[in-house]
């Protein structure tokens, strides 16, 4: 016997309106980390992002009647977080120094310049690895755990964009509407994020023989 699948967000609505703890918990578990990443991408440091998202949860659940189902609950929640995070980030800019803001290294990390000779040819061609090698290198760890770890190590804006575009599979236009990043800006951030994660996977597969099985 398999357990019934978790209800999707929309199926949870009546239970959320009834303020059922288990429903709140399921929704928070499903979206909290992603929403914090969205807030981080809007120039909030980790702790401030956590605070904003907690406030956004309270505002959202208090105003569930205002959710009309024209978008998914996920999109609606993200919109609330974006609004509140922008406001919080603007308030911080008025009172803090720029060094306090997240993400200067969002502009870094295109293809590795060192990988190429001055004439534009590969200095050292990419290491040969595939998904199978990666799974072997992870030695029983979930690939998804490694994926999340790699995303977590990205600069905040890159992490936010790659979550929306590649993990959630949202389009450029929807992401622009949610995060307020132009398609060109998303392009640059998404490229850098994918290259960095590819490099992380390459490193994992290269290092694999070093940590041999006991």
């Amino acid at each position, binding site marked *: 016997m398999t357990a019934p699948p978790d209800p999707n967000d929309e199926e949870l609505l009546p239970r959320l309106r009834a303020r059922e703890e288990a429903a*709140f918990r399921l929704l928070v578990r499903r979206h909290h980390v992603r929403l914090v990443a969205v807030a981080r991408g809007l120039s909030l440091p980790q702790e401030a992002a956590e605070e904003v998202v907690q406030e956004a949860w309270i505002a959202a659940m208090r105003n569930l009647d205002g959710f009309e189902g024209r978008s998914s609950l996920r999109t609606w929640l993200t919109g609330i977080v974006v609004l509140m995070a922008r406001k919080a980030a603007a308030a911080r800019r008025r009172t803090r120094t720029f060094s306090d803001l997240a993400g200067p290294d969002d502009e870094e990390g295109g293809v590795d310049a060192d990988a190429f000779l001055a004439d*534009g040819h590969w200095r050292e061609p990419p290491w040969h690895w595939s998904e199978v090698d990666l799974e072997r290198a992870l030695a029983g760890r979930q690939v998804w755990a490694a994926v999340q770890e790699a995303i977590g190590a990205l600069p905040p804006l890159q992490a936010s964009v790659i979550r929306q575009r590649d993990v959630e599979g949202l389009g450029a236009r929807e992401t622009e509407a949610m995060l307020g990043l132009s398609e060109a800006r998303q392009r640059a951030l998404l490229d850098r994020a994918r290259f960095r994660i590819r490099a992380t996977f390459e490193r994992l597969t290269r290092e694999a023989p070093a940590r041999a099985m006991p």
Partner: protein
Amino acid sequence: MKCREAAEHASALLDHDLDLTLRARLRLHLAACAPCRRFAEQVRATRDLLRGAPAPAPDPGREDAVVAALLRGKPEPDDGP
């Protein structure tokens, strides 16, 4: 097209985000260059591995705090700062 430029466009290729000329030049390069083909294939594999990855659960302490705040519900109007 040089390898470095080909690598830089390998991600945009996945999203059909290159104009026709650039895409044609890139495909020509990839057809002739095994290392770049490998790189482009790995970028694609990376993108595919990300799809649908479940978000990690929040720290249990954080999750409890948020749920508790939700259960407390509406703060009194003069409750906040």
